[in-house]
């Protein structure tokens, strides 16, 4: 809707006003604008950090995803200490081991810190071996204890380290977002572009299809499609299958926007000028029209990522998304979707916290990008 309101024009630098005499490129201008949006900056930092962690999650996590610690089933997060029970300061942080007891009356696993047994935390320490990027064996972890165990986010019902699983889950969920959005972009730009540029009967046909897809609730279609995924598929194929399903219902919105832009731009003076000057069709599209809305597309893409991430959790909630042994945020939250977790093991909801943070970050980043990329959009449109 806002897109209809603002007719995008290429950044004309001189318009920046008399106060800036020095000429700056549109890119620099955008960067200046972006920096003004402080939350977007923070979000960008957070997301970069998260993606870096997901790339190196084998190294960042102290354990492997399937490693069970039978001594710590449903154990709460361990606190990291610098002071021991006697109040002595230790430069090297440490955790206390847990004493576990199943209470015969309450059937609850009760955990108490055993101050007799402390496990110092070492950094860049050898631990469980892992297969880095499926390429080579390694065993160095960012942090680990030499004896005992460390569960910063606690453990789940099988005694698996939540810290490890949250970041392995991030790898799947955050990449589903990006891959899915790329697919959406591909379809959206292609189809929207065709409709917008060709016009006429093609446009009307595509318009109709978009209208159809937009007037249907997505959830039943996600369900039906994921139920139709062949059983024999490996987890990797299911991953791509789910990604494609999620993006299938994302493109119509984008295609409509792209089409709108195309229609509007076709009539713009600068396009007319380019055409009159004898520029070819393709040159007009790629040299003149495309650049004027790439910023818009980037923004839309950024804002579409969280939808994918949330979509994956919704599918998992219904039990038709990814399945163990794949670890994704949706899979992790499926464990946490009951009343018992809220009351008794709230740390199993930590993956939810990461979903929330990531989705917020993407939204704020998208806002920032929009403000930055389109100077006339945010309060400065002087016509």
């Amino acid at each position, binding site marked *: 809707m806002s897109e209809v309101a603002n007719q995008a024009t290429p950044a004309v630098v001189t318009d920046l006003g008399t106060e800036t005499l020095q000429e700056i490129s549109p890119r620099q201008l955008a960067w200046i604008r972006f920096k003004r949006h402080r939350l977007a900056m923070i979000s960008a930092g957070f997301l970069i950090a998260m993606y870096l962690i997901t790339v190196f999650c084998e190294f960042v996590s102290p354990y492997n995803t399937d490693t069970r610690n039978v001594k710590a*089933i449903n154990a709460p997060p361990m606190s990291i200490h610098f002071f021991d029970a006697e109040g002595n300061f230790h430069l090297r942080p440490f955790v206390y081991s847990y004493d576990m007891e*199943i209470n015969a009356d*309450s*059937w609850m*696993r009760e955990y108490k810190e055993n101050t007799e047994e402390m496990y110092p935390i070492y950094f860049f320490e050898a631990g469980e071996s892992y297969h880095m990027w499926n390429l080579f064996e390694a065993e160095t972890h960012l942090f680990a204890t030499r004896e005992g165990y460390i569960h910063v986010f606690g453990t789940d*019902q099988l005694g698996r380290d939540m810290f490890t699983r949250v970041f392995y889950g991030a790898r799947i969920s955050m990449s589903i977002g990006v891959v899915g959005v790329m697919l959406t972009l591909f379809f959206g730009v292609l189809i929207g572009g065709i409709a917008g540029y060709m016009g006429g009967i093609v446009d009307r046909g595509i318009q109709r299809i978009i209208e159809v897809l937009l007037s249907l609730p997505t959830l039943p279609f996600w369900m039906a499609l994921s*139920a139709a995924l062949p059983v024999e598929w490996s987890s990797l194929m299911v991953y791509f299958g789910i990604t494609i399903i999620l993006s299938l219902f994302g493109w119509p919105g984008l295609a409509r926007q792209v089409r709108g832009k195309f229609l509007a731009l076709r009539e713009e003076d600068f396009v007319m000028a380019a055409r009159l000057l004898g520029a070819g069709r393709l040159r007009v599209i790629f040299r003149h029209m495309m650049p004027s809305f790439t910023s818009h597309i980037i923004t839309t893409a950024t804002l579409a990522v969280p939808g994918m991430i949330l979509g994956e959790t919704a599918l998992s909630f219904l*039990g038709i998304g990814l*399945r163990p042994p794949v670890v994704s945020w949706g899979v992790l939250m499926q464990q946490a979707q009951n009343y018992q977790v809220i*009351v008794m093991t709230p740390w199993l909801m930590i993956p939810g916290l990461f979903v929330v943070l990531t989705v917020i970050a993407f939204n704020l980043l998208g806002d920032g990008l929009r403000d930055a990329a389109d100077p006339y959009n945010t309060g400065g449109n002087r016509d």
Partner: protein
Amino acid sequence: METDRKYRRGLTACLVPLLLSVLLISHADDSVSPMPGSWFEVPKTASQLGIVSFSQSPILDDRGLPPVSERLPDDPPVIEPLNDIGQFGGRAQITLGDSWQFFNWESALTISADLRNFLPNLAESWDVSADGRVTTVRLRKGLKWSDGHPLTSDDFVFTFNHIWLDTDINPVTSMLILGGRIEKIDDLTFRYVFEDPNPMFENLIAQYGSFMVDPKHFFVKYHPSFADREFVDAKVAEVGVPTWMALLDALRNAIIDEGLNMPTLRAYKIVQRTPTMVRFDRNPYYHKVDPQGQQLPYIDGIDAEDILDNAEVVTAKASTGQLDFAAFTLRTQDIPLLKLGERNGEIKVHIWRRLHSSDVAIQPNYNYADPKYRALLWDVRFRKALSLAINRPEMNEIIYFSRGVPRQVTVHPTSAYFEPHYATAYTEFDPDEARALFADIGLKDINGDRLVEYPDGSPLTITLEFLDFETPKGITMELVANYWREVGLDLRLKLVDRALQSARAQAGEMQMTLWHADRVTDILFPLVPDWWAPRSTGWDRGMWNDWARYYQTDGELGEQPPDIIRQMQQWTDDMRFETDINKRITIGKKLLQTNADNLWTIGTIGLAPHPVVVSKRLRNVLPKGIWGWDNRWTLAYHPSTWYFDAD
């Protein structure tokens, strides 16, 4: 009171510290509370106990009903409550899912609390002829439907001939009544006659018996064999159902208002149905009384909320004391939360034991299309390796708080067919032996991914598809997948919904599937020994459906099974036709022994704790019972004697 003493002795015995190994195979006595001796015997009648006057719930006063003594049968059976004589009144808040447990079915026979024998219920007595072909039932005098209409042999005859044998309603006759007919002798006596010996038809009457009697005087109005066809067609059109069979369904489930008029024999009668709940009121003609002559049930009515199978909401409501009784959808892992509710004083959490021989019965598909995979599964070494690779003690600790029993799929300890070693065969944890067995078969890791391949180097992955419902199946399988992966087998899990489970299991398209192993007590095991031989197909079974089809159709369909399987099928036939109980047990033991040796299904943990939540006002619920389908969950424990404490 003989049995009572026996059970008390059992309880004392379990207080004596026992070695763990003994405990694992012990005769489950410790898991059942002492019960009144009369729950194991033919119920005494009022005249036998000298009860002459009867009383009714005050809510029935001034309703213009005939006096209670006229509504009760001539000589009503007396049911002894668990602890104390109850008081009338109250409405129970439960969910619709638990209504089958809160007021059970009433059939001609019922199940003894020992889960081995049968007792008369609507019947005064019954007998099975020496050749097992004829089962004769004599009804009590003066039994009435909830509308006051007398219950007679005609109702049974109608149900058998016009519901069960009607080819529109049941296009194919159920195997359980194949070759059978019903004969009316007089108004209160009838008999089922079979071409082949069918000595265990009584098991069916007791366990599935609710399907054997419908109110004829109600259904004849809608059944085209009796009613005017035009009237029925008009009714079908008016209600908007596609067929008259669907109309009967709609009536039976009280989906249309006329269904509310359908009489019942159960303790409660449906009076109202809304999208969110079903209300039941007490049946003023219910046939049982307590030792003081008070007409059962004690509780006046039930409000059963229909919460769309949402187990989480049920658990949350149960733990916060919003339900008077909850059990069906509760799971072992909910116990800590429920116990928290108990500490808040809102509820009591009884821990029963599920009768399931194993909460998970892993079923390899021996009829799977890929010959290489079939050959591998058929190798007993492979199945042994799969079983030995499972760390059951750890699984017991992680999922069951160490209160389950590592077990294979075999009969329940209460069974006359039970031998402890059937349950413990290959349940030890021995991953090295499992790896050695793999190597023996020729399975080895060729490409260095720590997972074994077929001897010819082609990849070996197994997909196990399952429906995660009732017992903790999902979490168990996540562990099993880990254990198998640790010995080098790549197991993938896929959750399927009910329709898919049914379609794929019955078509033999699943490489492996699972369900929990119920039908393991003497009530059902000898009648439907489906875990141990291919003799029928079902949505819960996916291991040998082609062989079952071959058996069912005498070789017309399906595929000829190997000799050893033919032998299993033969034994199930022998068991079904055998009239001598001792001979039957001998045959049954052969079947179970061969299965224990061959491990055609793989078990994990059985006899597991099951939470039964009762509100602080509900009384007389058995603290420790056996939970499961064989007993229809509560059938032997007399829920009609539950009552609300007024304080």
